[in-house]
């Protein structure tokens, strides 16, 4: 069976080292936080100026001055720190974050990322901090469904959507499989209820397989 979004978030969380500084993008990647147990000491960064972000705020915890990058009210954990935007993006662009997890429209076989604009007529482009995360984090993980609603693959030989970053993605976590982007091509690390042959039949990207 392909993974559901919560299972996928849990799978991403498994690969985050204890003690890492991590930025989770808006949307699905936010769910990864639910699968990071407190004892592993992962510190979450939010680009609007905070390290040590806690879970979403509920009830009386809601404070309009304390939100995440998606403008959702959140909480602070012991040891949290606040800082302004230039400092926050220095952390991101200066290579200080260990991992960021981003959603994507498309990822190419060479690790190009497209996740900010479909370029469709009438669309209003909005990039936020995506380009800064893409070039700045030590490892860029993408979390997405492997196929778009129309069935077309989102892991592609070359992105057709406008790029967010070039050659920046390390690993792609999807509902059907986990892929590592390497200088030698795309490797399948793990698959979920599907065979590599089936993946090869549906993707136009050459796939290598780790043999253990």
């Amino acid at each position, binding site marked *: 069976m392909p993974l559901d979004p919560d299972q996928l978030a849990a799978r991403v969380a498994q690969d985050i080292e204890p003690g890492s500084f991590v930025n989770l993008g808006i949307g699905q990647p936010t769910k990864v936080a639910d699968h990071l147990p407190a004892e592993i000491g992962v510190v979450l960064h939010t680009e609007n100026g905070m390290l040590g972000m806690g879970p979403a705020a509920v009830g009386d915890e809601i404070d*309009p001055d304390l939100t995440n990058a998606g403008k959702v009210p959140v909480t602070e954990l012991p040891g949290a720190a606040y800082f302004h935007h230039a400092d926050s993006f220095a952390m991101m662009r200066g290579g200080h974050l260990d991992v960021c997890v981003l959603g994507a429209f498309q990822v190419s076989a060479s690790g190009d990322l497209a996740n900010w604009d479909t370029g469709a007529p009438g669309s209003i482009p909005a990039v936020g901090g995506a380009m800064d995360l893409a070039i700045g984090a030590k490892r860029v993980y993408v979390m997405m469904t492997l196929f778009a609603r129309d069935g077309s693959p989102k892991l592609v030989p070359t992105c057709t959507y406008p*790029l967010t970053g070039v050659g920046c993605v390390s690993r792609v976590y999807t509902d059907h499989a986990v892929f590592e982007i390497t200088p030698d091509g795309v490797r399948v690390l793990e698959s979920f209820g599907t065979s590599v042959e089936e993946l090869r039949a549906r993707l136009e990207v050459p796939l290598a397989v780790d043999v253990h």
Partner: protein
Amino acid sequence: MSKAQIFASPDEAVSVVKDGDTVLVGGFGLAGMPFDLIDALIRHGAGDLTVVSNNAGNGDVGLAALLKAGQVRKILCSFPRQVDSYVFDDLYRRGKIELEVVPQGNLAERMRAAGAGIGAFYCPTGVGTPLAEGKETRTIDGRDYVLEYPIKGDVALISAHTADTLGNLVYRKTARNFGPVMATAATTTVVQVSSIVDAGHIDPEVVVTPSIYVDRVVQVEPRHYTVQGAR
């Protein structure tokens, strides 16, 4: 100008804004948005403005109200499109406002450069993307960079938590966001705060924006607005 002036009303504080000015507007969504200064700017009526802000307004309040009043010719921001950015979306689709999308880190760093006297800088953000098209690039130590220029404001309108009578500022939680960097990047920085205390009553070790960057301060009533919780 030397030390900050304290004004009795937001209207007096924003009177420095002129037609055609570039106005840096603090806030990330609604957190840190200088609502009272923006409302005063709407009453003031200065037009043909270029606004620099992370978003392009939320709902009908704050920056969205300024856009709706037709006072903004162009906006530079990182993330205009949001679930509640309908005022901007409508103006943009009707061709009534010009948009320059700037990656969020470039928005912050370009203002930081303006405030720090940096003429331009090379940055890896956006290399190989449509937002770097037409810009000068350079390879340094094997990595590609894009040349980015400062963004300087005529006026910055920001919100902080507390000022002292000299204009030293402290902020509150993630409402700090763009305030400190915008304060450095404008000719005149106007700040709304929830409280003003005598000089000496903010621990010098915790001052975030030193008074040298602050020109005008006005105390306003804390605004209680609702934010939507997690969905």
